[in-house]
Each structure stands twice: as structure tokens, then as C-alpha cells.
């Protein structure tokens, strides 16, 4: 809203119209990426090499898939804190399915995703029908998912192996040596862009994030859209887990924990407003790459783990202070 108001104040000329197509936050996110690349190249000359960049993009793909789902939920004005264990569920269920015979091996990936969709639907029911705050609902679902997985694995590390298909899409290379994972992200991303910009679902998502009351009174099927958004987020998070399990050839306890904060950060750093209603996918892409690069640089600099966390938090706050601020009361 602050953005729109600022635009209106400038007099609503064609200049403002142009500005709407190029989000300043997205631009600055890409600018930061360039800056990071330059900083990284100071430490290591191979930082700017195509192999390294491609490797980075591959690693970013996992976060990218997860962040796509998170973005849709944040656009609604909600949040999905169940990502950590839905990711784990996706990975663990997919690898568990491979133990169910040849049919299981074929269906491993769909099984993993379906579990995520199921958990996402639970989130959706809580938010859309019970009108509970998404923060609590998703935290509760996260806890339940964790509980289920602890029971399922008996508390130990899961021993099931990933299916060949999972390994293929996560680690293989096709098409001119481009990593499959990156292709997968590209497909997911393209679908997300289409969904958000060209379908009634996408329009309704933005409308709900802007003003749910008005969307409701305009006859939009707000409950269905909210449910679908959470189902999508759950499915994508689980898919991310499937990819991770494919990459590592097996699932692991708490495999999704390192992805929650980066997913939210990536979405927000890309210019999507945490309050909903504003944001574009290109920004999320930029945010994901930015976060991934940041993590890489910190490890290249051989920064100790503690430094990584601190810099992480500081960078997010700094970016938000520039682009994510709210309005004053006297406005």
C-alpha cells in the first residue's frame, strides 16, 4: 500500500506506470547479487566461473522450489511455518515409498508430494475455514508432522534410499550440461508465474492479500483459493524435500530446518510484502539466488558458523529497513 500511495503522490504519470513494472526491491536484489559476486571473486578467482555459478544455481534450486510455495502464501498475507517438517515429510515419505516394491519406486515422487499437499490442506482448512491465524496453524501442523516422522522413523535416521528418479532430477544433468534441479526449478517457476499472472487463481491471491474483505464481497471464492494456496505451498515444500532426498540419496532428520528462514527471507528480500498483495516472482528468484550466494560466500570466506548466522540476520534486517517498512500513524 505504501508503494501505491507513493506512486499516487507522484502524480500518476506514465513514469509511475513504468515504475510499477520494475519493482525497486527486485532491482536492488539483483544489484546485491552482482555485488556479492564481485566480493566473492576477491576471495577466490573461481567464483565467477560458469561451473561454480551453475553449481550455485543448482543448490539454489532446492530453496527456489520451497520459496515458490512460501511466496504464494505470503502474497495472501499469511505465512507457512510448517515448511521445515513438510520438507522432511516429503523426503522421508518418498524414500519410504521406494521400499514398497516396484510400484512404490515409480510412485515415490508423487507420494512425497501428495503427503505435502495433504498437510498443506490441513493448514488451509485451519486458515480458510476456522479463520485461525496462519502462524499458529502452520506451527501446529509443523509439530504434528514432526511427531509423525519421529514415530515413523523410530527416532533414528531414516535408512530408506531414494529412487533412481529422485536422484536423476536432483543430481543429473541434461540439456547442455544444465543441472536437472535447475530445470525443475525453471519449470516450477514458469508455472508459478503463469499461475500468478494469467489465472483467476493468481488474481484472487493478490486481491486477498490486498483486501480480503473486498475480495469476499466481490464474490471471489476466497476460501477455496486460500486452501489451494496452502496446499500448493505444502506440495512444493514436500517436493523440495523430495529433491533434497534425491540429492543426498536419502532423507535425514530435521532436513527441512535450514530452509524455513531462508525461504521467508528470499521471498521478502525479493520485494514481496509480508503483509501480502504485492510482489512478483522475479523478485523471489533474485532473493533465492541472493541468499544462496550469501551462504556460499560466507563459507568461501571460511567464516565460522556463528558469523554466518549473524550476517544473515543483519542483511535481512538491512534490506527490510530499506524496502519493507510500514506507514506512520499520521499518514
Amino acid at each position, binding site marked *: 500500500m505504501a508503494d501505491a500511495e507513493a506512486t499516487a503522490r507522484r502524480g500518476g504519470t506514465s513514469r509511475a506506470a513504468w515504475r510499477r513494472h520494475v519493482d525497486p526491491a527486485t532491482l536492488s536484489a539483483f544489484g546485491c547479487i552482482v555485488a556479492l559476486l564481485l566480493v566473492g571473486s576477491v576471495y577466490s578467482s573461481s567464483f565467477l566461473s560458469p561451473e561454480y555459478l551453475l553449481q550455485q544455481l543448482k543448490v539454489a534450486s532446492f530453496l527456489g522450489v520451497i520459496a515458490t510455495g512460501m511466496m504464494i502464501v505470503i502474497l495472501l498475507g499469511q505465512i507457512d511455518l510448517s515448511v521445515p517438517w513438510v520438507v522432511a515429510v516429503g523426503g522421508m515419505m518418498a524414500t519410504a515409498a521406494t521400499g514398497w516394491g516396484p510400484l512404490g519406486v515409480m510412485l515415490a515422487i508423487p507420494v512425497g508430494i501428495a503427503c505435502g499437499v495433504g498437510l498443506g490442506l490441513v493448514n488451509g482448512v485451519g486458515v480458510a475455514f476456522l479463520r485461525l491465524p496462519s502462524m499458529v496453524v502452520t506451527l501446529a501442523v509443523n509439530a*504434528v508432522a514432526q511427531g509423525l516422522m519421529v514415530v515413523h522413523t523410530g527416532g533414528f535416521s531414516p535408512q530408506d534410499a531414494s529412487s533412481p528418479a529422485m536422484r536423476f532430477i536432483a543430481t543429473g544433468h541434461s540439456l547442455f550440461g544444465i543441472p536437472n534441479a535447475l530445470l525443475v526449478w525453471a519449470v516450477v517457476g514458469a508455472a508459478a508465474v503463469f499461475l500468478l499472472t494469467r489465472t483467476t487463481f493468481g488474481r484472487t491471491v493478490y486481491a486477498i492479500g490486498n483486501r480480503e474483505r473486498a475480495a469476499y464481497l466481490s464474490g471471489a471464492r476466497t476460501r477455496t483459493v486460500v486452501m489451494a494456496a496452502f496446499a500448493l505451498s505444502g506440495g512444493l515444500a514436500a517436493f523440495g524435500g523430495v529433491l533434497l532426498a534425491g540429492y543426498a540419496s536419502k532423507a535425514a532428520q530435521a532436513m527441512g530446518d535450514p530452509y524455513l528462514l531462508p525461504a521467508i527471507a528470499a521471498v521478502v528480500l525479493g520485494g514481496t510484502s509480508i503483509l501480502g498483495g504485492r510482489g512478483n516472482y522475479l523478485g523471489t528468484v533474485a532473493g533465492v539466488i541472493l541468499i544462496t550466494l550469501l551462504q556460499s560466500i560466507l563459507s568461501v570466506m571460511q567464516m565460522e558458523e556463528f558469523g554466518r*548466522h549473524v550476517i544473515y540476520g543483519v542483511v535481512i534486517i538491512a534490506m527490510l529497513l530499506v524496502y519493507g517498512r510500514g506507514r506512520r500513524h499520521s499518514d
Partner: protein
Amino acid sequence: MSGDWPYRLREHRGTLLAFLAFVVMFAIYASNHPVGLNANVATTAANKGVLLAIVAMAQTLVVLTSGIDLSVGMVMVLANCLASAIVVGSPRSTALGVLAVLGVGCLCGAINGLIVIYGRLQPIVTTIATGAVYYGAALALRRVPGGDVNASLAEALTGQLPGGSVPASLALLLGVVLVVWLPFRHSATGRAAYAVGSSELAAYMSGVPIRRAKFVAYLLSGLLASIAGLFLTCITYSGEASAANGNTYTLYSIAAVVLGGVSLFGGSGSAIGAIFGALMFRTIGDLLFVFNLDPLWQPLFQGVVLSAAVCLGAVRLLRMRNRLDLYG
């Protein structure tokens, strides 16, 4: 004044329900405990409960202003690691160490508050990010678990009161309530915090000191989280920068707050309710042990309990007559 009771009941409804629920849970727990409720059992249970209760109080302060503090577990962990380094040695150095730990807690809370107030950032993202920073600091202090704590202080806080049977941690909890919560609650700033959480716009139009209220709420939240961290050090006699632990306590503090009748939208509820919510949550977790259920089921059980508590918030739907009320 005889006509007052219905109103007082209404005002403290959440807290009273939490209290009753806790009493029921604890009765079930105590009566089914294999060993029975002796001093040691009570002390162990009390220690765990009080730890969560203090963190829950910290969360309550922020939730009242319609914010959320996802860094509260990390501040606790930071305090834990710091305490394991400096709350040692002579009584004088121990005392100074304690003050330093509490000071760091206040600092963390103040940083959260300043970013939310002057940066006008949403509390949820702010505290996720600051939580990372505080965790990093904890990790810097304790790359591996270790450290120590002044033994007499630890024993005093985690043992029993002189006289033998009452856990000292309960006295600590009572002290915190008397020194921190009650004065805040009954001060103009505390009421301003409620006002801000209930309707920030109305608070502004009424000339309520919004910024001061939020700042004090976040500051005290940090203070309480550091007290919890200090207490944790006294329990474990060491410091550990465990992200899992921090996240768990953050999550459980939210559960305790919800169970304690504090509204996540802000403006209503009491830290005392959150205390009972925390104790209740801990007791439920221990019920599994008491009934000889496989501890493997504990995380699931606690998740289900959290979900059930969360669903209580949907009860308001039953009385809703105008669907527009559902859409803010």
C-alpha cells in the same frame, strides 16, 4: 461491590480457564505417577515447568502488543551460553555475571523493540532475523557445549526451599511475577501495551504512548528470556548453543501463550495465564511418561495438543453472525 463479579470473571476468563485446566492435568499426573509426588519428583517437574513458564511470560509481553517474538528461544540460548562463561567464581563475580546476563537480555529485547518501532518492520520477520543474530552470538560464545556455573547459585535455584519440600524454582517464578509482571500490568505503560494490541489506531487517537509501551514490552521480554537462560544454565550446569532447543522453546512458548488464554491478536490475556499454559503443556508431555507410553510418541502427542489448543480459537466462529466480521 457485589455487581462486579460477572465483569471480573469476564476480564480474566482466559487465565481462569487455563488455571483450571492445569489443575486437572496436574491432578491426573500426580495421581498416576509411579513413584508418587515426593519432593524430588516435584522439583524436577517444577524446574522444567518454570523454565518454560518464564519463556512463555516473555512471549506474552510481546504478544499483548499484537506482535510475536520468534527470537525468544534464541535469547534464552544466548543467555545460557553467556551465563556458562561468566556466572562463575566468587559471589561477587557471580553477581556481576548475573547482572551482565540480564543486561544482555535487555539489550536483545531493546534491539527487537527498536527495529519494530522505529524501523516499522513486522515483528515476525524482525524476530526471525534477530533470532539468527542472537544464535550466532551464542555460537560464538560456545562453539561446543561446555562451561560451568556457580554451584551454590544453581543449587539454590534448582533445589528446594529451606524447609525441604517446596521447589525453589517456584519461588523464582513467583519472584519474577511480583517484580516484573505485576508492576508492568498495573502501570500506565502496561495498560498502554494492552491498548496497542487491542487497537493501535484507537490507542493513537487516545494519545496513548505507543512507542514507549512497545519498547518496554520488548525490553522486558528480553529480560525474561535471559532469566530463563540463566535458569537453564543452573539446571544443566553448562552452556550449549543448540538451535533445536531454541526453536523448540520458541514454539512451546507460543503454545503456552495460546493455552493460557492470551489472544494472539493482542490486547487481552495475562502472563499468569501463560504460566499455567506452560505448566499445563509440560504436564501433558509428562503424562506420556506417567502412563508408560513410548516416548517416541511424545512429539506427536504434544503437536496434537498444540493443534487442539489452537483450534480453541475457532470457537468464536460459533457466535459469528455477520461473515464480514471474519474479514479484517
